[in-house]
């Protein structure tokens, strides 16, 4: 089997397995539907191209998330003007604003999800990466490998994310979402 063939096969396998996770990621990075389609295509193209160079030095999952997040980062930095880049919130800032909109319960899942996406889109890029990886169910070590943060740093960010999510969405009622 030649290299192109194995690259194609690997891509097909990866695309099937991670299609939904990548779609969620694209939604969380880009609010505009047209740009979302472009970003999605850009990610898949980069992923397909990159698989030719996949060397197994990290897990395939780490590789995929790195490629996807990096393409999205590039997209956001390209789209952002200096001003809008400055409006991204750190987790600390987002946490301190938590009281503003958590007065009402989320009536249904769709509403909760759209609020969740809106919340993620406000965050600074690294915090977004940690939050999305956390929601995807990755452990702290994997998140550290993807983001380049230390595991301790990831843990502290996850702790903040959890606190913020509990405050904004949980409100002591597990059936609220």
């Amino acid at each position, binding site marked *: 089997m030649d290299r192109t063939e194995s690259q194609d096969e690997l891509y097909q396998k990866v695309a099937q397995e991670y299609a939904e996770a990548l779609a969620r990621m694209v939604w969380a990075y880009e609010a505009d539907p047209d740009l979302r389609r472009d970003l999605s295509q850009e990610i898949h193209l980069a992923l*397909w191209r990159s698989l030719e160079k996949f060397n197994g030095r990290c897990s395939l999952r780490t590789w995929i998330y790195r490629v996807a997040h990096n*393409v999205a980062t590039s997209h956001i930095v390209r789209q952002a003007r200096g001003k809008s880049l400055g409006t991204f919130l750190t987790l600390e800032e987002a946490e301190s604003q938590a009281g503003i909109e958590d007065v009402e319960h989320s009536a249904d899942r769709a509403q909760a999800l759209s609020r969740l996406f809106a919340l993620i889109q406000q965050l600074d890029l690294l915090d977004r990466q940690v939050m999305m990886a956390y929601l995807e169910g990755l452990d*702290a070590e994997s998140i550290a490998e993807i983001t*380049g943060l230390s595991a301790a740093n990831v843990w502290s960010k996850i702790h903040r994310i959890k606190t913020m999510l509990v405050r904004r969405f949980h409100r002591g009622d597990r059936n609220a979402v």
Partner: protein
Amino acid sequence: MPCDELPDELPDDLKIPWKEAGMNGLVFSPDQLRAEAEKIKAKMRRLYLVVSFGFSSAVASYAFIIFTFHYFHIRNALMLVGSSLSVVGFGYLVIDALLKRSRALAHLGETDGLRFYRTELERKRDWIRGIAWRLPMVCVAAFVVDLGVTQELLKISAFLAGVGFSFGVFVLGLCAVWVPVRNSRMARKYQERIDALESAMTSAGRTDPKD
């Protein structure tokens, strides 16, 4: 330790809808992606040709007009010096752009998010800073040409010379003062983000931020 075991209350009910969110994940076939890659490559090649041809033609026409004008009609030293400087300035910009174009990008799969984000911010910062100091270089040369034109207009009408000079000052102010000041401010914002990332890298145990 998995994230779920961290000792605080966890909104698991959010993770479930997140995972169950009915996202229609786009899946492309390798052939579609290959065709798209070819399309992008062809588009970039075309854009590059159009831009370089357009730019070179503009510089050549500018040089031709100014030099012809100088040798056959008006023998003004300022116009000659200014136009020579403009051509040198434009030439430098073209070479600089070509060198930048060939710079290799960080590999997506081998670069972690922190390092990649930093590189992207640096690229954007350098681009903004680059405009801030390259634009005045060309504008000053064009202003010297404008001074030459003003000198010649003065022989015809003081009013026209005044208009020509004011226009030159306005353009010079715009390109050599307003744009650099605005861009420096924007570049500073990017620098602040980069500094924040550097401190995150240090806390991640990296001695060299570029490591």
